[in-house]
């Protein structure tokens, strides 16, 4: 019987430690499938962050490194410069990338490092117990904003993709979501295009993916998918913010599919 869907070789057999319904698992799988389909598993070095995906070096079936909190782009830069023929990616949460690692990501983009960043935006610090992140939405309750985030006091949520897209070293920047099967399939195309961009030496590439944290949002996994669609997407619009003329794989990825 022809197989429609089966586990990718891009992942080890290890079971994910993520909470039930957490879309970190979906995103891991998409990255792994893309690397397998591009036949790059034996040629890839990934960098794991600090955050709930800290153990991703146990899951990706390629060489992996662990970075200090926020430093994945710096480590990926070093690896890529020493081994320019490898595919190098950093997998980062929003606390990792947009808080402690803000300088790292901006300058990696500014230098046009030929790395791919998978940026998982779940609007919260998951691993440490649900504290406010730079991407936490106005009004969103977290353990450190129990009355809801008040922008007058703690500032506005950062739209990282839009910011990085202003930097000329950035070749490919797209925001996607994994709240339903159609958007998951689009996210996979965007990840493919980002890696193709790296392969073609075109510069820095990043896919920001809106993701859930049912545990710390205090919602069921299904309610969390709705929250992504109804509350996150209006503030974090999906779409491509930057792409080189030449990168085309599977036709258009992104392009304002809200």
């Amino acid at each position, binding site marked *: 019987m*022809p197989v429609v869907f089966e586990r990718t070789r891009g992942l080890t057999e290890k*079971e994910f430690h993520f909470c*039930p*319904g957490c*879309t970190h698992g979906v995103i891991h799988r998409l990255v792994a499938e893309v690397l397998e389909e591009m036949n790059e598993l034996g040629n890839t070095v990934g960098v794991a962050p600090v955050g709930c995906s800290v153990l991703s070096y146990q899951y990706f079936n390629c060489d992996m490194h662990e970075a200090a909190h926020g430093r994945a782009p710096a480590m990926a830069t070093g690896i890529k410069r020493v081994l320019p023929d490898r595919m190098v990616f950093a997998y980062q949460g929003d606390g990792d990338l947009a808080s402690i690692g803000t300088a790292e990501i901006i300058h990696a983009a500014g230098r046009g490092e030929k790395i791919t960043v998978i940026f998982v935006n779940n609007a919260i610090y998951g691993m440490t117990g649900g504290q406010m992140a730079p991407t936490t939405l106005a009004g969103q309750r977290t353990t450190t904003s129990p009355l809801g985030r008040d922008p007058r006091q703690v500032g506005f949520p950062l739209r990282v993709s839009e910011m990085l897209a202003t930097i000329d070293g950035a070749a490919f920047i797209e925001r996607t979501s994994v709240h339903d099967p159609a958007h998951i399939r689009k996210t996979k195309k965007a990840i493919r295009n980002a890696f193709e961009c790296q392969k073609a030496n075109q510069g820095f590439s990043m896919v920001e993916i809106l993701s859930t944290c049912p545990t710390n949002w205090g919602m069921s996994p299904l309610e969390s998918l709705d929250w992504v669609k109804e509350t996150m997407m209006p503030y974090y619009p999906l779409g491509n913010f930057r792409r080189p003329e030449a990168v085309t794989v599977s036709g258009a990825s992104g392009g304002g599919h809200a």
Partner: protein
Amino acid sequence: MARNRGQVSFDIDRCKGCELCTTVCPVDIVSIDTRHINQRGYHPATVSESDMDKCIACGNCAVICPDLVIRVQRVA
């Protein structure tokens, strides 16, 4: 027009009972089996044998599952 027919199988002990797969099935045959508990202590997702021939092999349940529980095949 002949429609695709499919068969899904579940790696039951990987399932965390999150229910994401139960809402994306176009023919609505995936549900949580509240009569069973897997090794992890969750009620796992399932498709009953009597419903299996309604499967159209779209793959949606497998695509949304965060824990790679589901395998989908097309029945020729």
